[in-house]
């Protein structure tokens, strides 16, 4: 049991690949088939390209506020790769790469940051919940989803994401505890990217790790090198096994770093040092995973170049489609407040339409 061995209170951190991409402990290396490994790497790469371009689009005034994922691809893809189709993903808001792996369309993901609810309308079979802006509140939803899985005897687990900042919130506490007391099939991934906007991890808590918060709930917690997709993968696999056996939730703290700004409205140079950034740039998950893939004979510089070009084209094409969607129709924005629109809202809309007509619109 990794979870026993890597006790956060003993300052143990689970890693499989070191930051250069060398295997730390061969016994830990998971047996992932080539196809999956390639899908993992390709998704991380696509996430990276999409992220870079989203930032560009935003600076060109074509995209609205966007929350970059750069640096956190492994913490997302490593987890989702360990799930089955039937498992649920409950995102916070910075999980684009994970959502891509789970099957979400890039167009849809972009649509969200483009300012269109369509970006949250994941088809039901994807089992991805919408982005949740109120920090940590989604943990309670995830616990509820897991409760329903258990009661209905569905063979599925729920993975919920939260940030380091989110662990300070009361909603985190209530949600994890609810899952623990009911032994729910839930995996809580804390993407500890070291910052909550401008607030460093050290201001959130003086606990040495976030994984040790699990002690409060009587459940296991483990600190994992979050930039190592293989470590994230094996930790998730084990947590999933526990969950399906009825042993309840696990907290996985992914030690990672947000290499970009908090969102496109944020200027990280105000609060963080170049040294810190450099330190983490060297620990970029893509560097180490690429090395691993090349060592395995599954990847090459040529493939890389080709893939990046392909991604560039794909992302550009996708964003063109997104831009083609333009503004949302009047009727569309009102349609989903209730199953059946109430009369007064109808009247309000009609009044407004009359005004528009009077304006000649």
């Amino acid at each position: 049991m990794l979870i026993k061995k890597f006790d956060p209170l003993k300052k143990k951190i689970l890693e499989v690949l070191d930051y250069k991409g060398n295997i730390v402990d061969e016994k830990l290396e998971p047996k992932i088939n080539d196809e999956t490994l390639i899908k993992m790497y390709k998704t991380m790469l696509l996430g990276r390209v999409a992220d870079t371009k989203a930032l560009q689009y935003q600076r060109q005034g074509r995209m609205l506020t966007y929350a970059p994922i750069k640096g956190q691809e492994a913490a997302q893809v490593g987890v989702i790769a360990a799930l089955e189709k039937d498992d649920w993903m409950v995102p916070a808001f910075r999980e684009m790469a994970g959502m891509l792996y789970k099957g979400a369309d890039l167009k849809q993901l972009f649509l969200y940051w483009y300012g269109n609810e369509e970006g949250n309308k994941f088809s039901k079979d994807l089992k991805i919940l919408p982005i949740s802006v109120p920090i940590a509140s989604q943990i309670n939803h995830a616990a509820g989803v897991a409760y329903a899985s258990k009661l209905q005897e569905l063979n599925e687990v729920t993975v919920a994401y939260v940030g380091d900042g989110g662990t300070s919130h009361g909603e985190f506490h209530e949600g994890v505890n609810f899952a623990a007391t009911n032994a729910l099939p839930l995996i809580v991934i804390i993407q500890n990217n070291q910052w909550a906007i401008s607030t460093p991890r050290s201001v959130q808590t003086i606990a040495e790790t976030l994984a040790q918060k699990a002690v409060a709930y009587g459940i296991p917690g483990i600190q994992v090198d979050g930039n190592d997709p293989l470590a994230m993968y094996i930790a998730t696999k084990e947590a999933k096994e526990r969950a399906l056996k009825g042993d309840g939730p696990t907290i996985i703290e992914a030690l990672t770093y947000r290499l970009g700004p908090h969102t496109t409205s944020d200027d990280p140079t105000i609060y963080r040092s170049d040294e810190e950034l450099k330190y983490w740039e060297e620990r970029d998950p893509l560097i180490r995973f690429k090395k691993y893939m090349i060592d395995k004979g599954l990847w090459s510089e040529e493939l890389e170049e080709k893939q990046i070009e392909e991604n560039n084209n794909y992302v550009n094409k996708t964003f063109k489609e997104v831009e083609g969607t333009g503004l949302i129709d009047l009727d569309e924005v009102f349609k989903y407040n209730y199953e059946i629109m109430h009369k007064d809202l109808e009247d309000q809309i009609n009044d407004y339409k009359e005004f528009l007509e009077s304006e000649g619109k």
Partner: protein
Amino acid sequence: MALMTILDAVNKTLDEQMSLDEKVVSFGEDAGFEGGVFRATKGLQQKYGKGRSFDTPLAESAIIGGAVGMAVNGLKPVAEIQFSGFVFPAFNQIVTHVARYRNRTKGTYNLPMVIRMPYGGGIRALEHHSESIESLFAHIPGLKVVIPSTPYDTKGLLTAAIKDPDPVIFFEPKRIYRAFKQEVPETEYQVPIGKAKVVKEGKDITVVAWGALVRETEKAIKLLEKENISVELIDLRTIQPYDKETITESVKKTGRFLVVHEAYKSYGPGAELISMVNEKAFLHLEAPPTRLTGFDATIPLPKGEHHFIISPNRIASEIKKVVNF
């Protein structure tokens, strides 16, 4: 048919719905084993098991946020908040998620869930056990807000709420939980959400009330009969989306309007009704539409609470003022 109190009606409805639909689950603080501090969920755990009727940790965000997740994954949660004064820790979940999930996902995930809470004053209780906070929820698009005033309506409205594809906040007037009994069908029926009820027809004035104050207004009307004042009494029943038609028609007939509620006055529910009456029946108004409400002041502990009780005499006096304007 069986004679039931409002509390019985809540219990019997939950029992009936849980027996008819295995997706219905009921939970909250102390709502499992002992059946809730008012025993509204009594016997359900024994009958339907700990999975479908259960005690939660003391954590309202988990109760409501948990319900959201359950509803997403196929259940029909009926969550109990022990007293409406303790719903505020879950206000974030209600306003930012419960009310918005359908819209956020463009209809992919609707939330067929009910949040039950005893509410209202007059039971000589501790702090936070006496407030009427319906307008805080009625202001939020995406929610439905229901308040029954009789055992019959309680069963019919709660049944409708559980079957509703949208989230319903269901306030139970605890002051009259056990105040009286009524014949209630023992088979399933619904009272439609969104429809007010004309409790008594009349011609001089339209009075709208809900919850415990419906009965108090009926008493006031009795007092006024001697004085030959004929009151049309409407039980609002659904606070949002509410029945503008029934009220408007009535006001067009009577020309006068009074709304009576326990909630605080300023920015309270009465203001909405008065504005609506202005919008829909201005030219029929023979007196200013008026509100008789709770004070804009924190409800005192029991030794001061009598000042806050809206008595039949007070309602009668206010009706006379409007009628004699």
